[in-house]
């Protein structure tokens, strides 16, 4: 085989992977340390910094808010995104091309600008409660992922199956739920997971949409790091990584991870 890469290239790739993995290993090590300051390798093993997360009420509160926002935001994005993705594929000829571009716009626009615009128009301008503004922000933030992933799975769906069902007398709405949706189930699951993680990790949109008593976990982490340099943040980070691993395991079992690389 002549296409085996040069040893130097292999060595560089190995270093890049080392560069990617080492910082994450360090965070895990620092989280387990028994010291009151951040250090690696951990000195004495302890889980007390994990307990400390839940001892700090701001972390408890923001974990709940983040999970609520991620879940509801993803749900709303699916509710408006699935019909849109379906229509974009099913009525490809009838609908203008710019409509597809419109739904990826939230990725093109800088997230931080979007967050600021929501603060200006919703929170300050219209007096919308912060939780609701956060929900709006996160719904739109994840909408492009939902539309794209589900579109990709609809692209390989044979719409003549749907037409066959309809011409045999099945109602269009019923056909959608019994024929179309089950065929793109994998896409819906992938979209849900991708959207949920994106929302959970978001900083830039949430940055401006916080107020007294309400904030998201990443914003709380940022605030904590700027005041304290103890291993609590490392523990929260590990918690988030665990969540990611769990989610990846689910994706792997249902779809295979290469799905995400597309």
């Amino acid at each position: 085989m002549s296409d085996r890469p040069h040893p130097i290239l292999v060595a560089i790739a190995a270093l890049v992977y080392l560069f990617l993995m080492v910082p994450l290993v360090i965070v895990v090590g620092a989280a387990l340390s028994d010291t009151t300051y951040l250090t690696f390798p951990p000195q004495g093993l302890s889980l007390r910094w994990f307990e400390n997360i839940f001892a700090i009420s701001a972390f408890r509160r923001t974990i709940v808010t983040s999970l609520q926002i991620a879940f509801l935001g993803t749900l709303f994005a699916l509710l408006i995104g699935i019909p849109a993705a379906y229509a974009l594929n099913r009525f490809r000829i009838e609908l203008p091309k710019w409509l597809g571009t419109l739904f990826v716009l939230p990725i093109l626009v800088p997230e931080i600008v979007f967050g600021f615009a929501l603060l200006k128009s919703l929170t300050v301008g219209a007096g919308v409660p912060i939780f609701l503004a956060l929900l709006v922000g996160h719904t739109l933030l994840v909408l492009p992922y939902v539309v794209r992933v589900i579109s990709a799975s609809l692209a390989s769906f044979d719409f003549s199956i749907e037409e066959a069902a309809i011409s045999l007398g099945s109602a269009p709405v019923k056909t959608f739920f019994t024929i179309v949706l089950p065929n793109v189930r994998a896409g819906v699951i992938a979209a849900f997971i991708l959207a949920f993680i994106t929302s959970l990790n978001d900083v830039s949109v949430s940055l401006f949409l916080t107020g007294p008593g309400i904030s998201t976990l990443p914003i709380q982490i940022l605030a904590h790091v700027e005041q304290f340099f103890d291993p609590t943040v490392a523990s929260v980070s590990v918690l988030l990584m665990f969540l990611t691993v769990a989610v990846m395991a689910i994706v792997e079992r249902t779809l295979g991870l290469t799905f995400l690389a597309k």
Partner: protein
Amino acid sequence: MTSRRFWRRSGATGWALTAPATLAVIGLLIVPIGAVIAGTFMDPRGVFAPYISYFNSGFRTTVLFRTLQISALTTIISLIFGFMTAYVVSRAPGKLKSLLIVAAVFPLLTGVVVRAFAWLIILGRNGILNQTLLALGIVNEPLEMLYTQGAVIVGMVYLFVPLMVLSLVGVLENIPKDVLQASSSLGASPLATFWQVLLPLAVPGLIVGAVLVFTGSFTAYATPQLLGGERQTVLATLLQQRAMVSFDWVGASTIATIMTVITISIVLAMSHIARRINPMAT
């Protein structure tokens, strides 16, 4: 029968199904951002007054150029290492390849705050790198690595290399192996095949990756905030300060407009170039 034909033929159903998402994007994204941009041109001092005062401020123009510089360097470094890594990954045998892809996806799914925080532990004054260098006797006193441009760039490269690798693996795998085999069987050296066949075919993918990384690092907030601090203020951190600390709405809106215009121009320009180079690229 007529209603069924209407369902099948008319775009009305399509419009109705896309309506909620369309209205949400227009009403809750385009209109609010449009209002921010429009607001900067309604200054009582004159139409372009906020921009004139922005570019008259030495500090603020420095911030703009620093942000552009950091993004450009991040993009170039990520392109070089991302491309080499993606090439090795795309040529790896099946099992190893999926493992390598998983290893690149994982950091991508870990939040930006977590990934910036990791570098805070490494680069800090009493961080791991300083401790190691002191222990080895390479330096006599801890180096000031945090709050430098280098720290921000390292953090950003860390953020974006996985993205570059994943998008380029897809591109490289789509290049038919026959083309490369044809090149080498016709006598081209591996180096010539790389430069004259593989690289040109990968250019559209490289452009897409570069746009992703450039716009991502141009608008990133958490990494420059944690690793750069006030000394390395970039547009995103300046926007946050103007809005949340100084309550300077016009100033913040001006920065937001500059960021939006630059980001969208780059995306449009590069996708135009990518399409001209390779009409098959989307």
